[in-house]
């Protein structure tokens, strides 16, 4: 945590740390897959599209996963107000995918 932090209470630090780790893990996984897929694609090798697809889907899932992680983090901090807000955001995001099937 940088010295410039405006709210450096401990509970914020745990949430921030969890979020940063979650973002990084998802990002790195997506990056590796996307690079591998692009190389395979140029070499016209099999599975190129599949690897690219998994990579792009991993990237698209990272923010959703992060919201889910936040719901858990707020619950652990007994910050129920923000737990509900984060859960509502997660519901809206997932609703989009469901509505798409219907509309």
């Amino acid at each position, binding site marked *: *945590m*940088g*010295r*410039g*932090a*405006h*709210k*450096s209470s401990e509970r*914020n*630090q745990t*949430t*921030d*740390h969890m*979020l*940063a780790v979650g*973002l*990084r893990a*998802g*990002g790195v996984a*997506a*990056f590796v897959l*996307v*690079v591998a*897929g*692009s190389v395979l*694609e*140029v070499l016209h090798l099999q599975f190129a*599209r599949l690897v*690219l*697809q998994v*990579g*792009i889907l991993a*990237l*698209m*899932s*990272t*923010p*959703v996963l*992060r*919201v889910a992680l*936040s719901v858990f983090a707020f619950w652990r901090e007994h910050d129920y107000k*923000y737990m509900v*807000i*984060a859960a*509502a*955001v997660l519901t*809206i*995001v997932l*609703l*989009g*995918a469901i*509505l*798409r*099937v219907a*509309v």
Partner: protein
Amino acid sequence: MTLLLLCALIALGLVAGGFGALAGVGGGFLIVPTLILFFHLPVHEAIGISLVAVIATSTATSAVQVERGVTDVRLGFVLELTTTTGAIIASLLAAYLSKRMLAGLFVAFLAFTLISMLKKAWTSRAEKEPSQEVPEYRIKNYPAGMGAALLAGGLSGLLGIGGGLIKVPVMMLFMGIPTRVATATSNFMIGVTAATSAWIWYSRGFVNLGIAGPLVAGVMVGSHFGAQNARRVKSRYIVLLLIVAAGYLMVQMLVKLKSGQI
């Protein structure tokens, strides 16, 4: 896919991600018109791919910013309630809009981007080193922020951009949030908003994997290094460079629209 196309896409990603993160703006406004004008992609495909690139920018930059503690995660979640709602409405609507309509809206957005960046370049003239300390602040006027977030989310889902240029000024002017916190919080939100839209655009078949892959790889590297060096580089020159690029792309898009090529 040819090696040349691969390199061109990676380069576009590096430039849009890198300069975008250095200047504190997303790269979406560069990616969409470039894909249309120089890679000859259909308008809807360009927007779908750009949404994935926007997620990549947000993921790469906000990991750095959340760790530095400048992101107001709680404020971000409150505003995400409306950005995601706007994103869903706009994304569902976009498939029914013509390519000319979307391209026209995009030109209008480029004009807005141009004005915002000109203002930024003008006000940063006299600015000295940005201070490293974030001042104490008290959040006010949630309704204004949530309204702006709804609009930003809608534009994001419709045009494949991040929407930071709408959220950041409103957070600063109406909600009393310091610049750095507003920028970092906006970046943090953009990933969730763009992901909401991207899932819808992807399921409609507008995300070409062969194009999106190399572009995303470039964007992630570019914006990671951009975010790390943002405080060391004078952003004014980068903003000026982006103004020229946005102006050029806007004129080219207008020419194509007028001649009926879009």
